[in-house]
């Protein structure tokens, strides 16, 4: 009896190890290594995480992350501008190997792409609206026109939860112009972005009156098949290090992003137990 048990256990283990081996083909990792170049999908329209400088080069906090990741792997980096609407398809198709594109980590998205833990940033949903309106709660948006940006997941949330009538624009400039033209009573977007707008001094008659909702961590993503394999584990470790050694906080400072408690908390939590 013992023999049978041992045999079946051995067989089970063997089959399990075969199954793991079969799961991890590490195609993307091998491809990156063999051609010596990693293609990273980044934003080109999300200042200061990913945008263009005046000579057209892509720069920003996430571009620094992409370059650091490629450096750590010892390969060149190629940046491909992606949009909210096509970034996950690009990763699925293999057009990009890695995606660092201000993507909120949502349960439905985890089924499509391999979102790597730990998360590297966070943002919540809030609105910018004229001070004169004196909005105080999200319910004030009911049945009112609200400007938004196409492709943002919270457009649906404010519609369903608060009955707001969202008018989605292709660009932020258009949406903000519509807000100034009084075509809508508020502009729903990421709180960090609205915060930097308000501090620019061009929006003195406007405020961010509500409490941020759906505080949602951002995740970088590898192809789903690579998530628990070499590439996914590598990026996991790298993200952990960035949080632990304060690299992300440094980048945040470098790009003039309002400091978030998220990164400070993570740094504290992952602190080396030998450091006193």
């Amino acid at each position, binding site marked *: 009896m013992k023999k049978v048990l041992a045999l079946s256990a051995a067989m089970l283990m063997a089959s399990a190890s075969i199954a793991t081996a079969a799961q991890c083909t590490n195609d993307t990792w091998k491809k990156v290594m063999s051609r010596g170049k990693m293609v990273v999908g980044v934003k*080109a329209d999300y200042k200061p995480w990913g*945008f263009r400088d005046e*000579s057209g080069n892509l720069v920003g906090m996430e571009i620094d992350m992409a370059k650091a990741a490629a450096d750590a792997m010892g390969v060149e980096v190629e940046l491909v501008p992606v949009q909210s609407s096509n970034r996950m398809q690009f990763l699925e198709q293999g*057009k990009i190997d890695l995606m660092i594109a201000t993507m909120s980590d949502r349960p439905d998205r985890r089924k499509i792409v391999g979102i790597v833990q730990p998360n590297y940033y966070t943002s919540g949903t809030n609105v910018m609206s004229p001070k004169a309106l004196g909005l105080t709660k999200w319910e004030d948006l009911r049945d009112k026109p609200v400007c938004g940006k196409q492709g943002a997941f919270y457009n649906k949330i404010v519609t369903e939860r608060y009955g707001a009538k969202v008018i989605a624009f292709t*660009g*932020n*400039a258009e949406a903000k*112009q519509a807000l100034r033209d009084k075509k809508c009573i508020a502009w729903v977007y990421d709180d960090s972005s609205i915060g930097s707008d308000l501090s*620019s001094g061009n929006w003195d008659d406007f405020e961010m009156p509500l409490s941020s909702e759906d505080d949602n961590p951002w995740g970088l993503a590898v192809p789903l098949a690579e998530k628990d394999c070499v590439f996914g584990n590598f990026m996991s470790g790298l993200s952990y290090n960035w949080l632990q050694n304060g690299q992300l906080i440094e980048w945040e400072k470098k790009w003039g992003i309002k400091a978030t408690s998220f990164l400070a908390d993570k740094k504290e939590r992952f602190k080396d137990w030998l450091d006193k």
Partner: protein
Amino acid sequence: MSARGIPGIARPATTDLPVLLPIDPVKASGPDPYLLTRWLANIPLWVPALLALVVGLWPLAAQAAFTTGDAFSTLYRWLWFLTTKGFLFNVLISFFAMAIGTVLGAVLGLAQISLNPGVRMAAKFITQTFRNSPWLVLLYIVLLAFPFEIVIGDLIIPVPDWMKAVIGLSLPIMANIAEIVRGAVQSVPTAQWEASESLAFTRTQTLWRIILPQCFKRMIPPWMNWYAILTMATPLCSLLGVEELLTLTRQAMESAGNQPELLVPFYGFALLIFFAYCYPIARLTVRLERRFAVKL
């Protein structure tokens, strides 16, 4: 004036004899295939100049720290990048889409007048399908359905987005060029066919040596008309994220802080540069149309 009017002046002339007709620039009869080109060509040059001036003197929308002056100096700094990396791509896309569309369209147009009913029907079906599909739908299908790279053994051929946009845009152009070819061949008087048949030319010989040379001249204006339309349609690709003028304009505005004051200068610049490119084409098209008009 009498109730019946004078034929040819007060009312349309009615005759089935071949007569010399005056060119009808407004095309009172039937829809005008040159509508867009004619509209463009009819814009006097001072209109965009005035527009540019109005844009330059755009009153301040709000008491903002970011002024229109700032917006223009921002545009000025981006001008070179937008033109060389953005607009040249629009021209490139239109150029290749036109080249592919013309070659395929010529084949399809000739297939439409084939004596083989199977070929004729198939060509007609393809033409009507692509002529009547929205351009954006065709673009979406091509961009999303085509692979981003083609792997043949060890050889990897990358297919960049703009190349897929070229393919997507060349499909409706192909169908419209096919109609131009078919129309041009049919506009040649049947007497030409009969005469060449009496001289024992084969059908292929008739087509290549007698009919098509006569068609060529009269196909130039509608061909240029479609080129102008195509060029003005290339910003459609921006909806799909292809890196062309409008996509980069949006990214430039984002980079400059997304101030609403940027909208008019940046989009105004896009408008002017497209006008500057398409306007001479439209003027020349209308002139050639006049010269090559079929007066029969």
